[in-house]
């Protein structure tokens, strides 16, 4: 068997992930560590299933990071960015500058020339967005102050990569003729043209996001072919990556920018849920690749030097972070988590190291050594956070409760989700909105979504029977799911999905008629609303009044009828259950109506409210007087 075929490789990766991730989770190490372990084991150092290819895989797997940044971008609305401006610029900016300076000074003291020291300072000041966010998410700590602060810092770092890439060529002492192996449009151009190209690429992404992608999504949505949506979501990310590579910029950064541009779009949830599974898989692949790329031969040669470098760098980073945490008034335990989490060196270091090698800023030996250091420090992150969780956090659990914790920042997670915003759902939605309750709305009609979006309503395009879309809409934290779609089949799909994965949700379900109501009853839905019943009865009340009936009596009569009808329906549903058959033919439907009418006849519709009926009392009075 060809060991290097794509299928075989895929099998090895997938099998390793499936084998090691559950084990790692089971013994409390977390998924990220599981992937890393899997990578180490199938890598050249242990089993050798993947060897040289590890590097190529790394290249491919970095696309997982690109997708992650796209998703981070798409979740970042400008308003949110603006609210976080202090922590992003202040905390993030200071972290990069201070850590960079301290590490550069350290490198200089160890005898590196000043330009190399500066480059190293910048490279090592970055932390791993992928590993840290994934680990914090896994623990559910993203909502904590430490999580939010870490997020801000990571965000700044990811943006800071652009100027770093611009500065590095300036630091290189040698003027390199053909340094870059990957050719980009920027090569052999004067400085001003390079700048223009970079700015042009950024502008292209923003303009395309605004004026090209949205109309395109609209057209695709109208075709109602689901795979096309996934394809176009992938295309957006891939196209951005290609464009950025073309002009020699970081594709992750371009994806981040593209995400931010699309953050306000009504297709946001849909894009998110389409990219999410790919991101998850590719990030896993990325972690495996990091594990596999750890060069144990190099480590065995200089074990103490490498271990010393890893621990030294992480200690310096943690110290700088901790002092910043103090300045920004984080409580001790949150500050420790913040410092521990961000102490590693990030995936962008791989990119920057390769780049510095190309520009001959760093020699091959240093580059290899540092690549190993970066990979090991990344592998340490989940371990360090595990250490924090098991050893440090227990000491602070009490103090955490007494201090006033800010509520988790949840943007646009409403207590109510409305699936389907047609003539039915829109009425309910308007009513709730008029009473100050905002709902997250999911709808499948792209024209309607556009129109509502323009009115400033939180409406998202998407099929609510999809698990990931419900998650994106906040089903985990919502209280009520109103299902008001036009198609009964779709309604049933959503009900089943919600019952299975979000049993805490109260389901309020529209049914078009008795048939649908029966089916929903069989599914155990408690709150069923047959769409025409209330209107028909309201009409009936008006008819009674026009014939001279008293308004209050007619009104009560309709309520009595309604309650009786619901009761009859439940009775029929029980009967129907015994037969377990779906009434589909017209003939059977007519039979059912006959049963309902027979039930109406049996019930006396005379008002049976004795309280207002003096007859018995009159009789009694008459008798006592006789």
């Amino acid at each position, binding site marked *: 068997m060809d060991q290097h075929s794509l299928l075989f490789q895929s099998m090895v990766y997938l099998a390793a992930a499936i084998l090691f991730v559950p084990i790692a989770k089971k013994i409390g190490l977390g998924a990220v560590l599981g992937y890393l372990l899997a990578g180490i084991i199938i890598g050249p150092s242990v089993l050798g299933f993947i060897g040289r290819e590890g590097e190529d895989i790394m290249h491919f797997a970095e696309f997982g990071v690109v997708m992650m940044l796209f998703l981070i971008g798409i979740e970042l609305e400008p308003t949110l960015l603006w609210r976080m401006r202090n922590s992003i610029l202040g905390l993030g900016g200071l972290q990069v500058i201070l850590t960079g300076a301290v590490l550069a000074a350290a490198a200089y003291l160890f005898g590196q020339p000043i330009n190399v020291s500066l480059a190293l300072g910048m490279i090592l000041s970055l932390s791993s967005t992928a590993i840290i966010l994934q680990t914090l998410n896994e623990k559910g700590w993203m909502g904590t102050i430490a999580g939010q602060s870490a997020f801000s810092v990571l965000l700044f770092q990811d943006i800071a990569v652009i100027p770093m890439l611009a500065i590095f060529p300036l630091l290189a002492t040698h003027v390199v003729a053909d340094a870059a192996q990957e050719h980009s449009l920027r090569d052999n151009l004067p400085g001003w043209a390079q700048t223009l190209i970079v700015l042009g690429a950024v502008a292209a992404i923003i303009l395309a996001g605004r004026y090209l992608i949205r109309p395109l999504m609209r057209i695709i949505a109208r075709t109602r072919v689901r795979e096309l949506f996934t394809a176009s979501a992938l295309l957006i990310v891939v196209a951005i990556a290609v464009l950025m590579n073309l002009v020699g910029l970081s594709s992750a950064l371009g994806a981040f920018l593209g995400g931010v541009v699309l953050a306000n779009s009504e297709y946001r949830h849909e894009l998110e849920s389409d990219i999410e599974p790919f991101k998850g898989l590719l990030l896993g692949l990325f972690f495996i690749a990091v594990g596999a790329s750890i060069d144990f031969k190099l480590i065995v040669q200089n074990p103490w030097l490498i271990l010393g470098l890893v621990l030294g760098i992480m200690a310096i980073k943690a110290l700088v972070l901790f002092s910043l945490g103090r300045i920004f008034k984080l409580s001790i335990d949150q500050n420790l988590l913040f410092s521990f989490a961000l102490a590693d060196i990030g995936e962008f270091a791989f990119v920057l190291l390769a780049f510095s090698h190309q520009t001959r800023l760093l020699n091959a030996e240093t580059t290899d050594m540092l690549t190993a250091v970066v990979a090991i420090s990344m592998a340490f992150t989940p371990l360090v956070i595990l250490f924090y969780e098991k050893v440090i956090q227990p000491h602070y659990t009490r103090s955490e409760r007494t201090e006033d914790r800010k509520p988790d920042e949840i943007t646009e997670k409403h207590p109510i989700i409305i699936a389907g915003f047609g003539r039915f759902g829109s009425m309910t939605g308007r009513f709730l909105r008029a009473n100050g309750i905002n709902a997250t709305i999911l709808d499948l009609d792209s024209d309607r979504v556009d129109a509502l979006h323009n009115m400033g309503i939180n409406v998202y395009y998407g099929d609510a029977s999809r698990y990931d879309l419900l998650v994106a809409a906040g089903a985990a934290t919502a209280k009520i799911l109103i299902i008001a779609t036009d198609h009964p089949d779709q309604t049933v799909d959503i009900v089943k999905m919600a019952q299975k994965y979000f049993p805490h949700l109260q389901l309020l379900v529209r049914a078009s008629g008795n048939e649908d109501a029966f089916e929903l009853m069989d599914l155990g839905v408690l709150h069923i609303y047959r769409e025409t019943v209330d209107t028909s009865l309201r009409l009936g009340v008006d008819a009674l009044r026009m014939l001279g009936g*008293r*308004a*209050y*009596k*007619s*009104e*009560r009569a309709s309520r009595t009828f309604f309650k009786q009808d619901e009761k009859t329906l439940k009775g029929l549903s029980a009967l129907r259950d015994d037969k377990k058959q779906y009434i589909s033919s017209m003939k059977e439907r007519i039979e059912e109506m006959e049963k309902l009418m027979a039930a109406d006849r049996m019930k006396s519709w005379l*008002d049976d*409210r004795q309280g*207002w*009926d*003096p007859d018995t*009392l*009159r009789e009694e*009075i*008459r008798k006592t*007087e006789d």
Partner: protein
Amino acid sequence: MASVLINFAHPALEKSRVHAQLMPAVKSIPGVTFNDLYENYPDLDINVAREQKLLLSHDIILFQHPFYWYSAPAIIKQWIDLVLEHGWAYGRTGKALQGKVMGNIISVGGPEQSYSPEGHHQHTIHEFLLPFRQTARLCNMEYAAPFVVFGVHKYEYEDIREHSRQLTETIKRLQADNFNISSLSQLSYLYQILQLPAQTQQ
């Protein structure tokens, strides 16, 4: 000429004998505004602005209803709760109803003698109507003596006709406005204004 507003409340007029007869009689008096509360608000959702406007444009406000459980049908309570707003009907600045007259036209199951300290109900009808009297006082209104049809459980259709005629006469006398308004609260029952001497108003 005083304007009269009748706020009528009967949840089951189709079962009524007394009010089924009193109602058309009262309704047909020229110049009387007949406000059928259960008919206008079958969902008990009172239009407060409309009701307040009606109050402002009338001098004499009478609640006509069966006397259920020593009180009125539910919608009258709802009406009082919502329409008589603080700052409008009562309170330091609530003077909108000042100088108006309020009263009740009620049908009662038991005979008059059962509404006495020695009787079946142990209190007079006036004592049971205390919440209405105090409501009127709080809203700066004169509370008129009640128009009461006692012992309706024993009545046959013809017996009610006399009461119907008496009520019509009483309301017409109220409209004529040719007596001393403050004497309304001195009477025992409202029909007694028919015996008051006519006065010319300045």
